[in-house]
């Protein structure tokens, strides 16, 4: 599903990713960890082509993402659900509208949208707040809206960037279970986190980055 071969990425001549290679099979669940500034978010951004790389190859679902033209990018991105580290919630929409928005974008019909959006909010325990605006939610609630939005499309690939940073341990492990459930239904999950508790709780493969390099990998058999 996801293949990287000797990928290099620099920001203004400072390296952010150095010689990264790995393969994530379809249906796999992989943690990405490493200290602050190690390059986790950058790695995920390459996969949905929000940033481009300088050297190497990145294949997602068999396509070389570095070569996709702007007008075709939507095909790649529709397959991918992302929980952004900074949530990226729309302040002018209620949280139900926020979740429904990505369904509208892919052209779902009205009924499906209402039902699925509500269901997704329920899964993260926020259906009672559906008409609230993001500013009226606590930090952790906002994070959960971002998670609901990433999952609502039943994406083939789920990229979660520190999705439990503002959640208490109990909720964090609930969210982990939610991701594992999606994983069981066939979604490939890449989960960037700092939390040792999460890393231990989920018995999955781990890629550890440090200063842009892979310094450790835990392989699950």
């Amino acid at each position, binding site marked *: 599903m996801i293949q990287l071969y000797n990928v290099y990425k620099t920001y203004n001549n400072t390296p952010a990713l150095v010689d990264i290679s790995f393969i994530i099979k379809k249906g796999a669940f992989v943690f990405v960890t490493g200290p602050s500034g190690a390059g986790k978010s950058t790695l995920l951004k390459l996969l949905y082509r929000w940033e481009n790389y300088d050297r190497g190859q990145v294949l997602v679902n068999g396509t070389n993402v570095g070569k996709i033209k702007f007008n075709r990018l939507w095909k790649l991105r529709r397959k991918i659900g992302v929980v952004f580290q900074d949530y*990226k919630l729309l302040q002018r929409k209620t949280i139900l509208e926020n979740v429904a928005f990505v369904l509208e974008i892919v052209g779902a019909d009205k009924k499906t949208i209402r039902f699925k959006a509500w269901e997704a909010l329920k899964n993260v325990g926020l259906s009672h707040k559906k008409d609230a605006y993001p500013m009226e939610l606590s930090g952790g609630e906002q994070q959960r809206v971002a998670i609901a939005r990433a999952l609502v499309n039943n994406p083939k690939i789920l990229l979660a960037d520190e999705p439990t940073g503002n959640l208490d341990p109990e909720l964090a492990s609930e969210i982990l279970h939610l991701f594992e459930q999606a994983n069981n239904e066939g979604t490939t999950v890449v989960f960037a986190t700092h939390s040792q508790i999460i890393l231990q709780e989920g018995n999955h493969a781990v890629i550890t980055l440090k200063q842009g390099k892979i310094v450790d990998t835990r392989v699950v058999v």
Partner: protein
Amino acid sequence: MRTLKTTITNIKSNKQLFFASVGTITIALSILGLFLFVYINLNSVLSFWNDQVQLIVYLEDEVSMHEKKKLEKMVSSHSEVESFDFVSREKAWKNFQAMFSEKSAFLKGMGFNPLPASFNLKIKPTPNRLEKIRTLAEQMKQLPGVESVEYGEEWISRFEGFIILMRVFLLALGALLSLGAVLIISNTVKLSISSRKDEIELMLLSGGTPGFIQLPFFLEGILHGLLGAVVSLALMKSIHLYVVNQFQGAIETFGRSMDFQFIPFPLIMTIVMASILVGWLGSFFSLHQFLGVYKKL
């Protein structure tokens, strides 16, 4: 359908900017329209005055029938002459008496008619008319039977100067205003787009097709232009009606049965289309610039 709804939602979520934008466009177009309005009406006044420019050829009192016929033939066939009148000595005397009616007692007392007969020629309006009139006047002076020639030389040159001044002034103003309108519209659309930066970014990130992302903004730009044009034209029309109602009397005393004309229909359509085009162009360029950042990645 969905696009239309998105457009409406977009507008609703940012009402203030929308009204500001349409209002700005309305004002810009209203000003342009008012100028057009003034210009059109001024032009019609000027072209009326223009028609009055004539070359008067006075005949000698002893002119023969033959000479008169020859002159008439020459005048009627001349390429610069639009039309002509013959004023006999008797008619001229009557006109003169009518003109100085207050002093008619003295004039009647004169007992003889001092005025000559004349041909009054209307000259075709061409840019270098003054030159042509001058040449024609010189020619006519030489002909037998012509006593003298009069064409208000001074008045014509004054008048032409005034017309040129007026036109240049109005055109400069119009150009300034058009430029202003385009700047304001494109700037407003840009602000409208950048105020929805987050939304566009999320659409890009969630797999919205370029069409899906851009269409509502195109529609919005077009709507800005359309509404601005319609509202400003409605404003123009009410000003027009008001002016006609209030001042028709004053206008009529202005010398002839002149109407305050409204902007003609083809021009109205042109304004509406141009405004729509400007709205679309504004959104197009702004979107292009905005999306360019994401294309480069």
